[in-house]
């Protein structure tokens, strides 16, 4: 088996290469769960973002390594008070039906995104723009958003305060332009095949829900001459094991993920196709600090944090290259100096000794164990991690740990209500490459703070950092905020995500990057 498979795979690949030279080049990408919508201002999931990245182009776009570069705007300037950006749009930028892309299209897109009537999940990402919050809350009409088309090729955006990461937000789909004529004509059906008009390197050909989305190159795209791949097929691959088998059968060039249990097999048999890269995300467990047993009980929180052996979770439970987390903000975040927890680098004996001491001090013992309920949403991987963590707490501390799994929507509600939760699993992927994307979700007023964590000093630190213009001061503020978090421990960071996928060797021109953003227009097929 071992020796046949790679050879078999190789022959399949050779076959593919031979046939590919005649037919149009088509790249087949596994794209995980179903894309819920191709409306850029309503899309929420990673799957949708992947497709939209090929379909649309924002003012700013990314290079293969996800660093920022000129997109639909060929240049821009920032005013001296760091509050007003002026973008100059490319004159040759065109929509997929040949219409020119104008500043008005971007204004319309941004307004639509902020308009509460659109129902965007990501409108809050526009918050740094002046008046955006009032528009989102419905207190101001959308045309009051501080975005202006000076002329068809000049666009200004005025900010609420200096925002260091603002340009990074402009690669997000909620800032994409909208083709006004087709939106007006088709209404909610504008994103269907045949109706959708986009300004990116590709355009929509076919969309079969629960199966695939087919894109072809957009002949009107300004850089079409440098695009190599003719068609991209995004396949729905909800079931990772099925995806893995399809890759092995040569039906996919690129997978969305890799089933955790196949890690060892893959590293032994397909090492050259296995691609891992750090990812801007943290997998964590949250404590509900508004209720016992974790309310005002830092010792128990700390004991439980220390009793998790992250190395085991990463190496044995996950085994695909995840990094143990002893801080909150993922390594590789631009302009961030990590504040590691005090226990960073301790070995298991040390951590466990301290954990047991704290557990006892918090008033628990063998006769009087802490009873802890771990909530997680239904998912193979979360189940595995939760089972392992429960066993660590149980076997090493004597905690009476109980697992509860709920499916996603129920879990979200339970979490939000904070009435029953004790410990819950969670994960966060940064929307943009800045520590703020991670730190802000623990602000006492943030919608995602389901821990109920509220420390005025923490709030003050990140509020200050958000509008600080001096990079050095900002870095210090964010560093201090993270350090405070590692002291208070409303959350247990467990590991930093990695992106992991199988990529056929015939795909070139792409680079692993921390955002896991990959534009098909840079890729080539051999």
């Amino acid at each position, binding site marked *: 088996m071992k020796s046949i498979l790679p050879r078999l795979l190789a022959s399949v690949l050779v076959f593919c290469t031979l046939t590919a030279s005649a037919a149009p080049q088509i790249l087949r990408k596994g794209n995980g769960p179903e894309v819920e919508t191709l409306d850029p201002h309503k899309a929420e999931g990673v799957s949708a973002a992947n497709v939209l990245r090929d379909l649309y182009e924002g003012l700013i776009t990314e290079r293969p390594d996800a660093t920022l570069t000129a997109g639909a705007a060929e240049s821009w300037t920032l005013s001296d008070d760091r509050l007003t950006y002026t973008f100059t749009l490319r004159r040759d930028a065109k929509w997929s039906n040949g219409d020119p892309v104008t500043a008005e299209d971007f204004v319309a897109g941004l307004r639509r995104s902020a308009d509460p009537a659109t129902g965007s999940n990501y409108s809050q990402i526009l918050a740094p723009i002046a008046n955006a919050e009032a528009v989102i809350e419905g207190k101001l009409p959308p045309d009051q958003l501080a975005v202006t088309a000076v002329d068809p090729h000049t666009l200004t955006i005025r900010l609420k305060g200096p925002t260091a990461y603002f340009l990074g937000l402009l690669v997000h789909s909620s800032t994409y332009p909208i083709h006004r004529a087709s939106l007006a004509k088709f209404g909610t059906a504008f994103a269907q095949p045949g109706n959708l008009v986009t300004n990116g390197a590709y355009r929509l050909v076919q969309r079969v829900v629960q199966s695939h989305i087919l894109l072809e190159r957009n002949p009107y795209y300004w850089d079409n001459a440098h695009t190599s791949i003719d068609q991209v097929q995004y396949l729905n691959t909800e079931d990772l094991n099925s995806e893995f088998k399809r890759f092995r059968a040569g039906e996919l060039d690129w997978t969305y993920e890799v089933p955790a249990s196949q890690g060892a097999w893959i590293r032994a048999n397909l090492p050259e196709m296995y691609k891992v890269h750090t990812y801007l995300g943290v997998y964590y467990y949250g404590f509900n600090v508004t209720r016992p047993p974790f309310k005002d009980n830092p010792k128990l929180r700390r004991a439980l944090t220390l009793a998790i052996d992250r190395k085991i979770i990463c190496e044995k439970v996950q085994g695909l290259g995840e990094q143990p987390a002893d801080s909150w903000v993922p390594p590789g975040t631009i302009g961030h100096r990590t504040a590691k927890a005090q226990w960073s680098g301790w070995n298991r004996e040390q951590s466990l000794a301290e954990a047991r001491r704290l557990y006892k001090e918090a008033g628990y013992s063998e006769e009087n164990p802490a009873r802890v309920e771990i909530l997680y949403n*239904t998912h193979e991987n979360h189940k595995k991690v939760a*089972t392992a963590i429960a066993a660590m707490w149980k076997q090493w501390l004597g905690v009476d740990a109980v697992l509860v799994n709920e499916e996603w929507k129920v879990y979200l509600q339970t979490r939000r209500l904070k009435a029953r939760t004790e410990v819950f699993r969670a994960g966060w992927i940064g929307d943009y490459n800045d520590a703020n994307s991670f730190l802000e979700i623990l602000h006492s007023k943030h919608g995602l703070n389901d821990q109920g964590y509220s420390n005025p000093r923490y709030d003050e630190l990140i509020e200050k950092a958000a509008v600080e213009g001096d990079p050095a001061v900002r870095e210090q503020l964010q560093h201090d905020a993270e350090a405070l978090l590692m002291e208070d421990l409303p959350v247990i960071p467990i590991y930093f995500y990695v992106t992991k996928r199988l990529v056929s060797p015939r795909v070139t021109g792409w680079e692993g990057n921390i955002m896991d953003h990959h534009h098909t227009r840079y890729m080539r097929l051999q």
Partner: protein
Amino acid sequence: MNKVETALAVAAAAPVGRSLWADARRRLFANRAALLSIVVLVLMVLLIVLGPMFSPWTYDYIDFDGIWRAPPQTEGMHFFGTDQLGRDLFVRTLVGGRISLMVGIVATLVSLLIGVAYGATAGYFGGRIDGLMMRGVDILYALPFMFLVILLMVVFGRHLVLIFVAIGAINWLDMARIVRGQTLALKNREFVMAARASGVSNGRIIRRHIIPNLLGVVMVYVTLTIPQVILVESFLSFLGLGVQEPATSWGALVNEGARDMDAAPWALIFPATFLAVTLFCFNFIGDGLRDALDPKDR
């Protein structure tokens, strides 16, 4: 019970009953497949109940250094190897069997209870009541019940009791139909007429005369339903709606094993074998019982 009634009951049971049951037992034991199945099933139950005692492991203990140990692991006492978290598969398979069998039996009993009560009532009263009640069954037959079960699990979360009730609720329809048919035939038999003539109440006749005579059919049905229910549970496990970890069932184990079948085949083979053998046994016993009780063959 008054004297007349007792006499009637005995009269009803004696000539038909005793010889029928004795006969049936003889036929059943003459059926080698069924007999072997009974023996295997008894052994299986014993193993499931007592087996975990002979292992030093518990079903939820994680040995972080012993992930995916292939069997046989005699020195580690992992007879069936370990799973993706280093838990002992021998104990997990047996403990999972407890849940699967329990779900199978309890859910079948639920459907039995509803089905027999409903079917016997409809059949006994006949006429318009029967028509109405059976129309109701027809209506329910057309419901995509599995979908409703999925909705139920989504709505109310995964309690074991709910699984019993939900699965039981799907299966009672067949039972009701079968029982009704039998009752229709039974109610015109002499002993029932005699009971009615001597003024025994309807409820009593159903309980004392009709239901005991349905036992044969019901037993066949029960043995054939249990394996179906076990499969339904495994289906729910596949959809992620099964029992809560760290507890497990054969369905859940087989599902996990199927996922990693090329990396750790033993994690599939052992639970799948247990599951398949058990279903085999129930089906063979059911077949044997049906043959043994079928009056046509006599």
